[in-house]
């Protein structure tokens, strides 16, 4: 098993004729992902990296039975691209661009939900189920197939955690970047039930950070519904209030809302195992499993 992406993923790349789109289409293909179609309006009919390019999502889906899409398009075109993919019947969409307006994301979040479509991102490296499929731009050499589910708001911290795990021969079922923006298409709480149901996953690692309430919402769900153990790391305990710390979503509100201490406490109360340093992750996993 694994979640979201696997051997049956038939991927469409929206924006495949762009520099990033074509480069990562070839890398994903090389990893073993079934990249079946590319879409760029007005550039249909050609092939990029051996992948047929279509003018629109409908044509691509009809011809190739694509069931998943990744968008390598600029933030200003992201909303339209996502809506076109949903309209075309795609049920899993990953959008990597950083800087998508939040009003666009709120609308697409609800429209995706209405159509039973899972939207991941923006500002994410994507999803990888090691050994099966990669839908994103992460450097795949550090990942190993295994039984740990990972979800992270930060790309680099997920690499850091995965590297620590793989070095100790601890593999991963699926690693998902929920993204660093303030309104993600899917949050931790949307992924938890998928990991809980997944037979390959035995433990879940959640890498959070300051800002928002996604960790708190996840904590409530964990307490009420999760049987599998969860480990969490929260970045940003030394961050000052009122300052955006790199990710658009990483900000402690004046007054302290979104700070690390509270998040840690709520997670701990929900039975989540907390680590304070990234280097502690492998030992913690070994101890629990």
């Amino acid at each position, binding site marked *: 098993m694994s979640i979201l992406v696997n051997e049956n993923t038939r991927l469409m790349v929206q924006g495949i004729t762009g520099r990033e789109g074509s480069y990562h289409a070839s890398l994903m293909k090389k990893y073993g992902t079934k990249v079946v179609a590319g879409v760029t309006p007005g550039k249909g009919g050609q092939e990029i990296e051996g992948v047929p390019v279509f003018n629109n999502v409908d044509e691509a889906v009809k011809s190739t039975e694509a069931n998943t899409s990744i968008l390598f398009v600029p933030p200003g075109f992201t909303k339209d691209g996502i809506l076109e993919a949903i309209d075309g019947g795609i049920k899993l969409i990953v959008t990597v661009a950083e800087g998508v*307006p939040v009003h666009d994301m709120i609308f697409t979040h609800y429209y995706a939900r209405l159509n039973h479509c899972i939207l991941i991102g923006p500002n994410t490296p994507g999803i990888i189920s090691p050994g099966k499929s990669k839908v994103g731009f992460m450097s795949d050499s550090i990942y190993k197939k295994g039984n740990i589910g990972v979800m992270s708001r930060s790309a680099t911290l997920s*690499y850091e955690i995965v590297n620590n795990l793989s070095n100790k021969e601890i593999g991963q079922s699926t690693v998902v970047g929920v993204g660093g923006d303030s309104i993600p298409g899917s949050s931790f709480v949307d992924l938890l039930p998928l990991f809980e149901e997944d037979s390959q996953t035995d433990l879940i690692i959640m890498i959070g950070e300051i800002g928002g309430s996604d960790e708190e919402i996840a904590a409530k769900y964990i307490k009420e519904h999760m049987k599998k153990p969860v480990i969490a790391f929260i970045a940003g305990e030394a*961050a000052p209030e009122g300052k955006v710390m790199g990710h658009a979503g990483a900000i402690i509100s004046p007054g302290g809302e979104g700070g690390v201490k509270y998040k840690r406490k709520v997670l701990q109360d929900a039975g989540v195992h907390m680590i304070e340093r990234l*280097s502690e992750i492998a030992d913690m996993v070994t101890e629990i499993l």
Partner: protein
Amino acid sequence: MKLYEYQVKKIFAQYGINIQKGELAKTPQEAKQIAAAIGGPVVLKSQVLVGGRGKAGGVKIVDDLSGVEKAADKILKTEIKGYKPNGILVLEKIEIKQEFYLSIVLDRKMKKTVIIFSSFGGMDIEEISKKHPEKVAKIYIEELLGLQDFHINRLLPLLNKDREIFLKLKEIVKKLYSIYKKYDGLIVEINPLILTENGDLVALDGKMEIDNNAQYRQKSLVDASNGVEEDPIELIGKQAGFVVIKLKGNISIISNGAGLALSTLDLLHKYNMGVANILDLSGGATPEKVMRAIKVVMQDKDVKGILFNIFGGITRCDEIARGIAGALKSIPENISVVCRLQGTNRDEGINLLKDVNLDADIDLEETVKNIVSTVNRGWRI
């Protein structure tokens, strides 16, 4: 990005929300002329983006117009929480019968737009909510539904069922919602929204914050506020194409991701070492880009040490190392440089740095310990 009151009120006026007569003055003389044109008692309001300007001497009522120039001069010279005013709004003084509070806010947690209204106004909403919770209404709007009449009808009980005022309020809520949508608002607030003696609703103040991600489609507002509130180093970084975060301390963190930089900050904090600034190279940095980044952080006079924390993915450690080696001569010897390289082409990177007598570690904690001791020693080699 926050907007100034005068910018917000210009938008209000365009949408037909009542505001007081008046204009923005950049000098005491201009303030005098505007007051003369108004021809009666005026209110002078310092244009800053921080709250609490009333208490800090940034708002003054002037009944006798001969005193306007002097009062304006004083306000223009008064910094508020460290910020210099960007002009003065000179407004007609207006009689208040009743004060309300109205805002439209994007609630991140609920992923919804919320309308907040109170029949008490003039103080901030947290205070109103504490003192008079029964006088505050919060109405959540489903995104795919948008604002409908029934949403606004829920405010009626708070107005003692006064239909005349309610109908006026309804129009204002609709206009404010249009503004919020059109300008990618995170918050649009009127506090106080006042009822005048002759029954009009007037926006006495206006606050607005727009989504930074949407700046590309809000160019007119962005140009008008021209980055006045930014820290000099953050501005230098922006001009060089980087996101720089200015903090308090002596270490500069250069990293290839926001999360990685943030956890490095945490780790330094555990060793009681403050951070002067954080610079995010983001993915795929070239040697030239690294050299440019070093040049940026060196302009921060607080910096006594630079810590590179790189986890190569798209970013290649050898490219980073080439950049560091290339810039090393330009870094004074009393500034420590330590590097942690991990991921793509790590060993090539470490060897390149060895050639210029710089040790790179693959372990982050070791690197942090290293910079703490070298900075405390005050010498690189």
